[in-house]
């Protein structure tokens, strides 16, 4: 009986909508089709209905999200440059575009959980800092992607 209960709870938990961990080397980017391997630049979006979209680069998530209504997503997550593999809230992250820190799709875009860290990496590597909103604006005007 107890086992059943545990199994039942587990199955309920398994069904609850939320972020999924990215299987590096297996999952493909929803936006650009590339296999996701880079744990410092991956990203994820989860809709209110629980559908999960995974991305190999933060720039893919941003380009995907720009034409859509952001409110339909319960989670927007980006990899923390400092803690490879851990996903943080995209809306509160601090972004650094630096010519010395390449990212998978050519935008040189990196995210940091800690704004002090992005500022200090900026100091070491040069570049420009963005918030989520200013990042979207600049990406929409196409000033951040190559060509």
């Amino acid at each position, binding site marked *: 009986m107890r086992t059943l209960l545990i199994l039942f709870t587990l199955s309920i938990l398994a069904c609850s909508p939320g972020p999924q961990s990215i299987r590096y080397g297996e*999952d493909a980017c929803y936006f650009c089709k*590339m296999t996701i391997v880079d744990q410092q630049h991956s990203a994820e979006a989860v809709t209110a209905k629980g559908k999960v979209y995974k991305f190999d680069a933060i720039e893919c998530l941003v380009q995907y999200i720009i034409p859509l209504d952001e409110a339909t997503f319960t989670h927007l997550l980006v990899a923390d440059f400092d803690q490879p593999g851990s996903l943080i809230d995209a809306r509160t992250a601090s972004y650094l575009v630096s010519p010395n820190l390449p990212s998978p799709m050519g935008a040189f875009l990196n995210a940091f959980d800690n704004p002090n860290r992005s500022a200090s990496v900026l100091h070491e590597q040069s570049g420009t800092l963005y918030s989520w909103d200013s990042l979207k604006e600049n990406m929409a005007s196409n000033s951040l992607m190559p060509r």
Partner: protein
Amino acid sequence: MIRQLLFLALILLLSGPAATRTLHVGPGQSYSSIRRALDAAGTGDRIIVHAGTYQECPVVIDRSITLSGYGLPILDAQGEREGVIIEADSVTVEGFEIRHTGYSYIEDRAGIRVKRNKAFTIRNNRLILTFFGIYLEHARSGVVENNAILGKPLGEANSGNGIHLWYCSEVDIRNNLIRGHRDGIYFEFATDSRIRNNISEDNLRYGLHFMFSNDDIYTGNTFRENGAGVAVMFSRRIRMLHNLFHLNWGQAAYGLLLKEIYDAEIRENTFQKNTIGIFTEGSNRIHYEDNDFLQNGWAVKVAGGCDQNTFIRNNFIGNSFDFAAIGNMSSNRIEQNFWGDYTGYDLDKDGTGDVPYRPVKLFNYIVDQTPETIILMRSLLVEILNFSEKVSPVLTPADVSDALPRMHRYGR
């Protein structure tokens, strides 16, 4: 006469080649360390490093010399440094085994790095467990040949690229074996380069990967059992000839992935046993000619935004699906291909079928809408559906049609 000859020999000895010397490094040789020999060397000199293990990485070469290993000496980077860094023009590095740069999130450590210079030659080396194998940055007019670059076994996410080009031009990459990296060969902003006769296998992501790179050619390479074979993205005028794309299986696995590329040529390649032979999206003016598509899940899958492409004289044999297309295909030309599933006739015996062939089957359309229906593949129901659609097409696109299907496969 003899005196004259002697005089001549003396002049030869004293004049021309006196500038270049050969320096020997190793136990019992004139130099005990590579660094000492490098400090003593001048332009054009050759340093021969004899067999042994050398723990003096990174070996920084700042002048135009040849560094040759004799008896495969080992450069051990001891898990925390780069192997060899080339910082001068006209440098050759050959005959070394370079080991254990260690892995890092902060810096892209390489077995051999070429920095901002030209006319380099890197050949006959073995790179074992280097994070990045050979890393070329802002380099041009060089050769990378006959190297074996062996990384981690498949499945470990933290690995660099085997041969990595970043803002390079006119590089020849030939006869290398690359295994166990993120991408076997990676081109970003690399132009006018040639990739010939390499084997790239068991890499985590791609055997070969182009990003923002133009006017390159790759020919005679084998891409086997990689996450996916080759990805060409955001690039122009790439020529792809005589390559083998083999056994790239998996959910996100393609023999060849094309994304937003223009004016490419794909000729005389073999795509065998891949989940998807070629996946193409947003790619225009691509010429696919004389290729063999054998035993793939999907031979060719064309997603949106592909215009003015030509598929001509290809063999499609034993694929579960020969062709899948999403979106308007009317500006693309498909003709004179051999389709293994063609059941038409040839009454005038000119080798070309008298009725057009439509390679997109109804079931194809259903699988695109609902991927789970793949379980019905080869069932009687699906056969009936496909047959009825073939007799009176309703759902399958009319613009995906080969008006001149061949009756016999092309011999190659």
